[in-house]
């Protein structure tokens, strides 16, 4: 569906994206994680055809996006800065979308609005940030996109609206086989929602995997050593933290071989503990983690 192949983008002298690659399968939800300024929004803007990459290729259904209106008409782009035209009324922006996108469904918009309740007589500049976000989601979902790009879609939303939107997105993928590329700082939400994730750090991909693979491979170990161990030669280790006499070790995979290595280093007790996406993000973006490229 979406192929991102060695994309590079510079703004003046700053490299916003450096050799970024990803492949997103049709009908899946792909999460984009990174610190502020990591390049997530730039990547989404290039995929949506707003910016042109300096190097590399972006292909949607094997066609380039930039200045390709046929492809752009199949993309919905929701950003956390939903200005549209501030003086438009909601009903005017709906009419505008209907005029621009041939696939726009007014019925779908009305159906979504029954759930999200955006007043259609208000001007956009009178709406709160959360309401603008709901409006943007409704508009972009109503064009029946093949690819939906979401930049911080739950920003400014209350917990109920968040849940409703997450349900709507899952529904959209299930029913219409829509592909979603979503960037967010709410990693617990992404963990529940996404099939795959890409972690960006300073414009580079530092980790890319499916959620399932992460859960199967990346492990957090609680280890008790007899003496102070030297773990620098264990390449599979992403991060080591010491809390009293207990060591918390994050490994990109855990098997008998690793276990044996740790025993040789003096491990008396090894226990697996749960790890969240948030912890993976933190560890892969730490100094050692950033040197690691998985999969």
């Amino acid at each position, binding site marked *: 569906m979406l192929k991102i192949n060695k994309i590079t983008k510079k*703004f003046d002298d700053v490299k916003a994206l450096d050799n970024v690659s990803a492949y997103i399968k049709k009908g899946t939800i792909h999460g984009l994680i990174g610190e502020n300024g990591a390049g997530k929004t730039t990547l989404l*803007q290039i995929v*949506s*055809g*707003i*910016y*042109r990459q300096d190097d590399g290729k972006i292909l949607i259904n094997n066609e380039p996006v930039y*200045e390709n*209106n*046929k492809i*752009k*008409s199949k*993309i919905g*782009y929701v*950003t956390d*800065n*939903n*200005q*549209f*035209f*501030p*003086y438009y009324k909601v009903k005017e922006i709906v*009419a*505008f979308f209907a*005029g*621009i*996108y041939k696939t726009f469904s007014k019925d779908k918009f009305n159906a979504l609005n029954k759930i999200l309740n955006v007043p259609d007589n208000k001007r956009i500049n009178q709406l709160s940030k959360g309401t603008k976000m709901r409006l943007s989601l409704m508009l972009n979902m109503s064009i029946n996109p093949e690819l939906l790009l979401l930049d911080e879609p739950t920003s400014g939303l209350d917990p109920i609206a968040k849940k409703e939107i997450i349900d709507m997105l899952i529904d959209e993928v299930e029913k219409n086989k829509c592909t979603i590329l979503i960037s967010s700082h709410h990693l617990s939400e992404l963990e529940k929602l996404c099939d795959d994730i890409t972690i960006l750090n300073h414009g580079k991909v530092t980790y890319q995997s499916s959620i399932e693979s992460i859960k199967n491979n990346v492990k957090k170990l609680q280890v008790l050593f007899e003496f102070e161990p030297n773990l620098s030669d264990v390449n599979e280790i992403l991060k080591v933290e010491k809390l009293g006499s207990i060591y918390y070790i994050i490994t990109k995979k855990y098997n008998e071989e690793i276990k044996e290595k740790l025993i040789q280093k003096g491990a008396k007790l090894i226990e697996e503990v749960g790890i969240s996406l948030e912890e993976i993000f933190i560890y892969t973006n730490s100094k050692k983690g950033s040197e690691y490229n998985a999969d």
Partner: protein
Amino acid sequence: MLTNPLFIRQLKYALIISAVISIITCSYSLNESYDARIITNDLIEYFEGNTNENLHGISYYVNNEGKEIPYINDMFEYKMFSIISASSIIISVGIMIFLFISYRDEKYKNTASFLYSLPMPREYFYIYKILCFFIVVTVPIILTAFITKTTFKPIIISISPYLNLLEYVSPENFYFELKNDIISELNLFIPNLFLIFAILNLLIVISGRIYTAYCIFAGMPLTILAFASGIANFIDLYLQNSDIRINIINRQFIFPTIYISSTQYIEKNVIFNFIISFVLIVIGFFLYKKSKPENLGKLFTINCFNYILYIAAFLMGGVIFFRIILFKVDLNGSSIFSGIFIMLIGSFLSLIITKTLISKIINIE
């Protein structure tokens, strides 16, 4: 292309703005024309009856009905006008700098991003802007020309109120070549100044120094204004050679600049403005297509168009109020200050009205 909802929306506001400007300029020109007919007739009578009199120092003269018509020929008042003119320009530049700082926010960048994400050929945005700004600039020129039988060119000239005020300094201004020459030089200079800015702007776009373009408040609107001044010159030429042209003394009195410009510079001015403007628009189109959208997003928010219209509105409002209130109602030392006060209120009112209207177009950039 022309049925696109974006264009229809822009067109609607372009027509509203051009209608408002037309009303202002028509009333402005009619008012000038009325003034000129009365005062010039009085002047002719005065000259015919007082050929040996020295006109310097005359504050009032008496018309046929025995009414005293005020005149500004006092050096103090002249200096006051110069100060007012200079202050207006300084205040306008201050406003421009303020707007420059306050408008360089994310809002415009986001709107530009939204537009570029739409499945529309990018060059449509350029064509829509050119068409709409063209309407905004040319409709008032043509309407004013045919309603008031004079030209719209003074709206560009009136950016410098100094020119408008000069004619009140003393009646000799209209007969002594020296002063007319100064005015005509300025008249030639101002529209060509737009061209200079437009050329600079394009050079800046080519070199990629977009933020510098903001600093000299350049942009496509300037190119179009230059284009418009070419049209104004054409109309000028047409009026000169047709039956509808008005009395030459009146014309001189109304807009002395136009008369001089028409006779001395019109041919090269017309050719220069038209050809250069057209070339600039075409070059701009290709540059627009070739340039990086992230930079064009910044440039094509066209804040500079805001600034130019704000300044024009500010000064026009000032000049109109200044003339109507100060000259027609009263003219003594104290009323000059009340006149200044009224002028400032009028200017700010014009500014607010223009800003509100223009923001409608800017938000569709």
